[in-house]
């Protein structure tokens, strides 16, 4: 035991050969090894990343050492975990010791309150955790200030309410919430996700922890907010010497910030080491599949760059949509015009709330609009009568973000697919069956899948079924609303490959909506950037770089994409003020975040809506200050 403690002198968190297995059926014979012989080390002041796809055991590992898994499922534990030399597992209260072959076998035992209390103290003080969905982790009934006070009291901070309040506000300012005094009295639903995540971090910092465990902290956030959060992590490490264990499925995030990385798969660490070393000279094929998921895209030129003289297929003219939110209302789509040419991929990017999905739903006539035209081959889709609409719905199809939500769980795949054809009674049963096996083959699924229920399919297979569902009516235009963002990286690549294949073979036109800028660059011919319901820039894929971008917002988006310690991106990000996006009235909506406006205070930006004008290089931009 002494030897062990000496070894731990310098590691903050030291996990050795940890196994967490769950009984599969309660018989004590079949086990699911959620965490299998994992050894992991975090040193003080170090940012360590764990990367792996969903189901690889990342979260189980963390919940396990924090004692948060208890009672969930009967499990068997093996191995050791130390925090600052203190053994964690006995505190987890998870085991009765049982010697077998020299190893300690740990089993769930009934609640042991004394140990639970010790662990609770440890959890709030030495290790703190922040979770993926910050607003879900904050109690909606408590104000931000009450959350902070509670966290401060819990960490046994001395002083009365006023002193604690000053302390709390200082902490909030420390994590970049400049407006902390105003925030103090707000409820969690009144602040943005990025702010909520910062509040969580400020609460975590109350106890002056040694280790911060961040479980997918930026997954639910926009790319710009994510960049700010990662910057904050870096600052906390430098300022407070905080060690951070960062769990993520996003290789960019890990690459950007962590010094060392552990690659997890099926509950095992397949590779570990210095981040740069691991990601550049990976040994394990799985790491390769993560790093190079999209590598083969780069070598294939985007299918036959759409000619500028290609026929226009879809034209959206000054589309407007107003949303009512309580007593406030705002333009979700404000005078958006764009044009899709036949056979091209037009990508729409922007932060959440920029109106991308609203645009998709509006042009699919799935919601009403407040004005404008959607011309499909010169015909206004919004004015089509019922019968014409049915015909149009066959030619314009849509892919949705969450395949599991789109497929009715009570229907077989075959029933889901045939529905699009059955409704008009034009096809015989035989023809429909033939079409089904044809499209299933096209999306590389076995025809036998037609008899299965969506519940029995993997997420990737489900998304293939939704693609088949769209293809079965032989569409011309496919509106893809974040079709891959809920999927794992490897499956994302497969689906993107599939979409690209169809474009080449069937001549499909895509309107591709995504917040993932890297993905968009690989697939799109032209890219439109939306901000607060307006199209602020349109650029050919080649000009979509931090240098080529005309609009400051596009530059911010591109610079926020995590990349391996890229100094220019970081310096561009630093130009922009750290403010939350607010809906402004009149003029340029971006001006409160725009470094150019803040420098020049151009009155035009305040009064006049910038028109979308042509610039050199074939793009368009809506900015008073951008050059030609």
């Amino acid at each position, binding site marked *: 035991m002494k030897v062990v403690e000496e070894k731990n002198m310098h590691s903050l968190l030291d996990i050795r050969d940890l196994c967490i297995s769950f009984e599969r059926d309660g018989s004590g014979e079949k086990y699911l090894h959620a965490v299998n012989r994992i050894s992991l080390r975090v040193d003080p002041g170090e940012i360590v990343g764990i990367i792996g796809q969903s189901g690889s055991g990342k979260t189980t590992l963390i919940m396990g050492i924090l004692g948060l898994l208890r009672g969930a499922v009967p499990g068997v534990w093996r191995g050791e975990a130390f925090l600052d030399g203190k053994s964690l597992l006995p505190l987890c209260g998870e085991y009765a010791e049982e010697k077998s072959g020299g190893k300690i076998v740990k089993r769930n035992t009934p609640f042991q309150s004394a140990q639970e209390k010790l662990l609770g103290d440890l959890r709030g003080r030495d290790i703190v955790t922040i979770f993926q969905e910050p607003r879900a982790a904050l109690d909606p009934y408590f104000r931000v200030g009450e959350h902070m006070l509670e966290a401060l009291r819990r960490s046994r901070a001395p002083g009365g309410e006023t002193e604690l309040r000053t302390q709390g506000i200082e902490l909030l300012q420390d994590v970049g919430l400049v407006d902390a005094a105003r925030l103090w009295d707000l409820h969690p639903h009144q602040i943005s996700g990025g702010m909520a995540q910062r509040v969580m971090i400020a609460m975590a910092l109350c106890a002056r922890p040694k280790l911060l465990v961040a479980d997918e902290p930026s997954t639910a956030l926009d790319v710009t907010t994510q960049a700010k959060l990662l910057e904050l992590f870096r600052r906390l490490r430098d300022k407070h010497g905080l060690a951070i264990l960062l769990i993520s499925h996003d290789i960019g995030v890990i690459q950007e910030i962590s010094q060392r990385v552990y690659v997890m798969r099926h509950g095992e660490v397949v590779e570990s080491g210095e981040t740069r070393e691991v990601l550049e000279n990976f040994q394990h094929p799985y790491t390769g599949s993560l790093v190079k998921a999209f590598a083969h895209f780069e070598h294939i030129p985007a299918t036959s760059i759409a000619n500028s003289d290609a026929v226009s297929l879809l034209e959206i003219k000054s589309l407007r949509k107003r949303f009512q939110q309580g007593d406030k209302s705002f333009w979700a789509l404000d005078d958006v015009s764009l044009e899709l040419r036949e056979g091209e991929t037009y990508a729409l990017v922007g932060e959440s709330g920029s109106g991308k999905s609203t645009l998709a739903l509006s042009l699919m006539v799935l919601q009403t609009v407040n004005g404008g035209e959607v011309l499909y081959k010169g015909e206004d889709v919004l004015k089509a009568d019922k019968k014409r609409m*049915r015909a149009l*719905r066959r030619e314009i*199809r849509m892919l949705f973000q*969450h395949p599991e939500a789109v497929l009715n769980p009570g229907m077989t795949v075959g029933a889901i697919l045939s*529905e699009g054809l059955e409704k008009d009674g034009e096809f015989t049963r035989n023809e429909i069956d033939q079409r089904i096996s044809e499209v299933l083959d096209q999306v590389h699924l076995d025809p036998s899948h037609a008899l299965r229920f969506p519940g029995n399919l993997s997420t990737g297979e489900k998304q293939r079924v939704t693609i088949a569902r769209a293809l079965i009516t032989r569409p011309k235009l496919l509106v893809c609303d974040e079709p891959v963002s809920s999927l794992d990286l490897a499956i994302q690549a497969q689906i993107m490959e599939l979409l690209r294949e169809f474009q080449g073979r069937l001549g499909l036109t895509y309107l591709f909506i995504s917040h993932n800028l890297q993905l968009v660059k690989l697939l799109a011919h032209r890219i439109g950037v939306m901000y607060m319901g307006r199209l602020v820039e349109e650029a050919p894929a080649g000009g979509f770089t931090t240098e080529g971008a005309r609009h400051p917002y596009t530059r911010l988006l591109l610079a926020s994409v995590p990349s391996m310690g890229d100094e220019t991106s970081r310096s561009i990000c630093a130009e922009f003020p750290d403010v939350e996006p607010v809906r402004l009235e009149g003029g340029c909506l971006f001006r409160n975040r725009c470094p150019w406006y803040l420098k020049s205070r151009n009155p035009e930006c305040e009064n006049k809506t910038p028109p979308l004008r042509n610039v050199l290089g074939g793009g368009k931009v809506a900015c008073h200050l951008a050059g030609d």
Partner: protein
Amino acid sequence: MISPFLRILGKPGGYRMLLGGLLVFLLALVTITGTYWTRFKPDEMDFEHPLVPPKSAWLTRLTTTADGRKALMESHQNAAPSTSSSSVTEEGDDLLGALKEEEHPPTEASTAKVEFSALRDHGHVLGTDKNGRDMIALLVAGARSCFLPGLVACAVALGIGVPLGLFAGFYEGRWRMFARIFNGTLLSMPRMVLILVVICVLEPNVYITMAVLGATLIPRVSELIATRVRILSGMGFILAAKEGGLGDFRILTRHLFWYQNRAVFFIQFSLIMAESILTETTLSYLQFGTKPPDVSWGNIIEGSRLTFFSGQYWITFFPAVAIIMAILGFFYLGDGLNARLAYREGR
């Protein structure tokens, strides 16, 4: 053959579903095929054998030897005159006959008579009532008269409640408002009072009564369906169905009703059947429902009111068992389905 049943037993609610299903199946079978295999018609009065207990036909035959039967036959021939006199009395007022029966506890001779009539194979396996009507025929006819009005109640409750719920859940605005007012009005009236009022105003027809019962159940069904539909309408697959070009009618019937709410439909069906059987027998017992000479389990019991304590237990006992089994069957079926559904949705 048996394995699917065994598989059901392993699931939550399985026992209840299987037991209930069996009872309901038996009831339905009896209702449909009853007229083909019953030996007597329910309105056929066997004046020779009133108030025959079930035991005599059933057990004597099993327990006595051929010689014993012969001896009994002989003793009957000696007692022949008494048989005719008793049947004459039965032709008179029913009530009087029953009272007479009470005044004169069965003598040795009458016991012999009864046992002999069993030997002559009068065929009343479960005995007869005071009019000499066969109990089995009565029970079968009673099953029919509680099953069919139950179906009427279900048809009204589900036939109006389900579409109303689907529309109110799917369309905002007018439909929802209409459903709210309609359901509110119905809920504001106590069920039994409403039924009794309708009976008083219209002629007391059991089908009308059951239709009224069904109407009082509309709010429950429609609100249940509307709430589910309201939640489901916001889900991706309804949006996707619209995107796929399906009309509202198809979305409502296929996606929202058949694939998402059919379980609710079947659960409600069995629960309403159980409730309507209970209501029908109650009303018939109170002489507001099925009127004699039409037969219902309720009015069989009502007719046996005076003979029950004089030892003719069977006239009350068998219909009561039938009522309990039928209601239990439907309740178990609904309950089991409910548990099964909750389990499925929980996954």
